[in-house]
């Protein structure tokens, strides 16, 4: 697990930096700490609840067969699930990203007003990327190893 990853925005949004208005091009995401445990636990639980019931027991083998499950795959699973509401997952992600773990263009804190300016697809893809790289990284690795 890397300490930080960069998410390239598909749709730039405007933000304030050093008194000027700039167009954001990427978001730097840093690994969560215990301060984020509530949101991380909720997102992790949401992912495992989104796995099809008959596959939960065999999910480890399935995951082991696939090379990688990426952020888009994770979000697709959540979106297709009848057990998990995508809206609540994105709401939790909004809280998580605005807690200080995300920096716009690597320098300005991603605040709630800025999250609200983000394109919906970007927010969804960034949530998937964060899940894959940080929150689910160790669980996915264990699945592959078993």
């Amino acid at each position, binding site marked *: 697990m890397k300490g930080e990853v960069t998410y390239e925005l598909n749709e730039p949004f405007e933000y*304030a*930096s*050093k008194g000027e208005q700039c167009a954001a091009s990427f978001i730097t995401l840093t690994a969560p700490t215990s301060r984020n445990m509530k949101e991380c636990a909720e997102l992790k639980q949401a992912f495992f609840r989104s796995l099809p019931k008959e596959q939960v027991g065999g999910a480890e083998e399935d995951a082991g067969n696939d090379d990688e499950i990426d952020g888009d795959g994770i979000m697709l699973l959540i979106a297709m699930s009848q057990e998990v509401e995508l809206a609540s997952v994105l709401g939790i992600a909004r809280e998580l990203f605005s807690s200080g773990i995300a920096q*716009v263009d690597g320098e*300005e804190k991603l*605040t*709630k007003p800025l999250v609200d300016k983000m394109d919906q697809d970007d927010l969804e893809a960034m949530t998937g990327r964060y899940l894959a790289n940080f929150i689910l990284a160790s669980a996915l690795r264990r699945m592959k190893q078993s």
Partner: protein
Amino acid sequence: MGVQLANPTVSVNNDAVSIMPNSLKYTEGLGEQTTRAASGGGGNVEQIYAENIETNFGKVMFDIPATVTNIALAREWKTNGNQNLVQIAGRTPEGTVTRTFTQAALLNDYEVALGADTVISLEFTSNPAI
């Protein structure tokens, strides 16, 4: 019948700010203009119009409650010099008004009054509103 714009949102440096109701005021930063008369002789007067660009600054003024968070925020904005950006947005059924003030600075030494119903009155001076 128009609807008075009365409940705007204010954000400073990407953070939403809770302000005292009815306290927000701003100037567009379009500056002051003057006219003078130039005599053409024989009773003819020509108007001379001038823009005083020294006055082309935007201003945003609002009050915030004197909470610990707001006292810290105001101090941060003050120490930022002119590296602040203030945005205001208001919406009525008729439409939306948004203004952005770049390179905003708190020039005066604002007062922090501590009491049950006191506020901190802030006045940012900036580039003309966008």
